[in-house]
């Protein structure tokens, strides 16, 4: 694997790490399987792209895109809490609706962002070679996001959210409004996802309505794979696992793509993903069996 492919893997892994962190909040903390992501990721891309070609600076555009993602999360929460639609379906419905919304926002399926000032431009101007510029910025953003989430989950509201997901009955018996926790959690998670979409579009050079396809699988591979390889009960370790899981997944993919000798092509990406997640889930079981044998 070339240095270029390696940094490309780190870069893409970091961009999608934000989605993985969001998936950690919904799937793991809140126990709410949220599929809105397939729609909120391209939503972030669409909003940012449309604003940027209309003259808004990339930072403001990315920020507004993030808020748009929060709104998408609120929509799913509304469908689930007020209309009593099953959580998985609520997310799917919002994602489906967002498809049309994104087309409307951009007025076309694709907006090109090549040769535009992006959030990465200032870093490049500082002298960082454009090969590394996105990695630097994304690393900073991901670290900040991770730390904020770690801190948040230790606050009164954060603990309440963890209780709401772990044992809703106990949470309610302690004065916690589970519905409110779902709204907040979905808002944060989809805000992060939309931010990821905006950052990725600026890296890719385009925003496209089809960008959301496959995003949730990748995020779950990162969360499941990461937490299986780094099992822990501590929140900061778990969020770290999700970030590393996202990066490792991309590196594994890059390896699979580069070794043409094995005969793997990009068409086998899905199988590769499934195998990676299966190995990641099997390893801890193997490890504990090994440890047991050692102890004898």
């Amino acid at each position: 694997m070339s240095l270029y492919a390696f940094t490309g893997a780190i870069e893409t892994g970091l961009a999608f790490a934000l989605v993985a962190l969001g998936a950690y909040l919904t799937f793991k903390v809140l126990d709410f399987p949220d599929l809105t992501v397939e729609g909120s990721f391209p939503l972030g891309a669409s909003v940012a792209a449309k604003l940027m070609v209309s003259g808004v600076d990339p930072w403001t555009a990315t920020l507004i895109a993030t808020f748009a993602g929060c709104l998408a999360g609120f929509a799913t929460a509304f469908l689930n809490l007020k209309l009593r639609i099953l959580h998985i379906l609520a997310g799917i419905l919002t994602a489906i609706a967002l498809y049309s919304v994104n087309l409307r926002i951009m007025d076309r399926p694709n907006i090109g962002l090549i040769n535009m000032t992006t959030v990465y431009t200032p870093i490049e101007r500082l002298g960082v070679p454009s090969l590394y510029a996105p990695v630097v910025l994304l690393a900073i953003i991901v670290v900040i996001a991770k730390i904020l989430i770690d801190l948040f989950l230790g606050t009164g509201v954060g603990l309440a959210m963890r209780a709401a997901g772990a044992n809703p009955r106990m949470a309610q018996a302690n004065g916690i409004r589970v519905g409110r926790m779902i709204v907040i959690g979905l808002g944060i998670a989809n805000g992060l996802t939309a931010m990821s979409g905006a950052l990725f579009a600026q890296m890719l050079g385009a925003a496209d309505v089809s960008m959301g396809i496959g995003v949730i699988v990748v995020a779950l591979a990162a969360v499941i794979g990461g937490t299986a390889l780094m099992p822990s009960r501590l929140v900061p370790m778990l969020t770290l696992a999700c970030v590393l899981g996202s990066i490792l997944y991309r590196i594994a993919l890059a390896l699979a793509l580069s070794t043409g000798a094995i005969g793997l092509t990009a068409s086998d990406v899905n199988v590769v993903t499934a195998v990676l997640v299966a190995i990641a889930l099997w390893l801890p079981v193997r490890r504990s069996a090994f440890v047991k044998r050692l102890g004898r």
Partner: protein
Amino acid sequence: MSKTSSLLTGAAFGLTLAVAAHAADVKNIAIITMNDTPQLLEVKEGLMAGLAAHGYAEGKNLNVNFKSAQGNFGTAQQIVRQFIGENPDVIVTITTPTSQAAIAATKDIPIIFTTVTDPLKSKLVTQEKHPGGNASGISDLVPTELQLNIVKEIVPNLKTLGLVYDPSLDNARSTVESIKAIAPKMGFAIVESPAMGINNVPSAGQALVGKVDAIFVPNDTTVYGAFESLVKVAQDGKVPIFTAERRSVQRGAVATVGFDFKDMGKRTADMVDKVLKGTKPGDMDIQYMKDLPNSLALYINKDSAEKMGVKLPPDLLKRAAQVF
């Protein structure tokens, strides 16, 4: 130095030169496509055939690295990165999103894009002539006025034209906008029937039966993926379908004045050949398939026309380049 050692040195030197020269003769091209639907694979086929015609033999003086992103943008980004790391002599990008990804990622490696409908709007280049930079290519922009003329010729009392297409495809959308712009002055109204995904293609067609006099399908990989089902709907509903390229007529569309995707692949090979021989893509004008010599031809499917209840004007058949 003894005679033997100088001979050996000379031989080694000569061998190295020969190997280096040989290595310099082997060209490396990397091809990326967003999807591997049959239509796009036809482009690749044409590209390989065209390169062979120019004297490149895979395995001998040409290495080809072909990858499909399977519709996944994250994967496309990684593939582009991998290509750049391998430093090929040229990257060929099929469809708009992969072209955008490649152009955003490198300013050094030459890029030839193909099967992109609107290179300017997609921000691939800033101008058509002498675009500068490291990218150029071929657009599959559909000559909509020519197409619609044929439709009017075969369906003289055309009042309403239906459009079946996938709104998430930039290429299709561009063609649809173009048709909507000229339809008024050609004297007919447009009814759009979007198909979001391949499973919705037949129902998108069924929605138009009884409402329109004819259906037009722009170059759309989604609809072409389920084209036979659309043809069946049209034949059952007695609504003629027209398309923008050759293969779909073979599959059941009534007629087109269009080009052939395999042919487009061959023309792409012409541009690739120039780049491999040293021309900079930035010095090559954007080419429009429809403007290239001998690219457009009239194709007619007599059998399907009958099934769709359409009477073909006799002289039209005489003008056809190929009748299925």
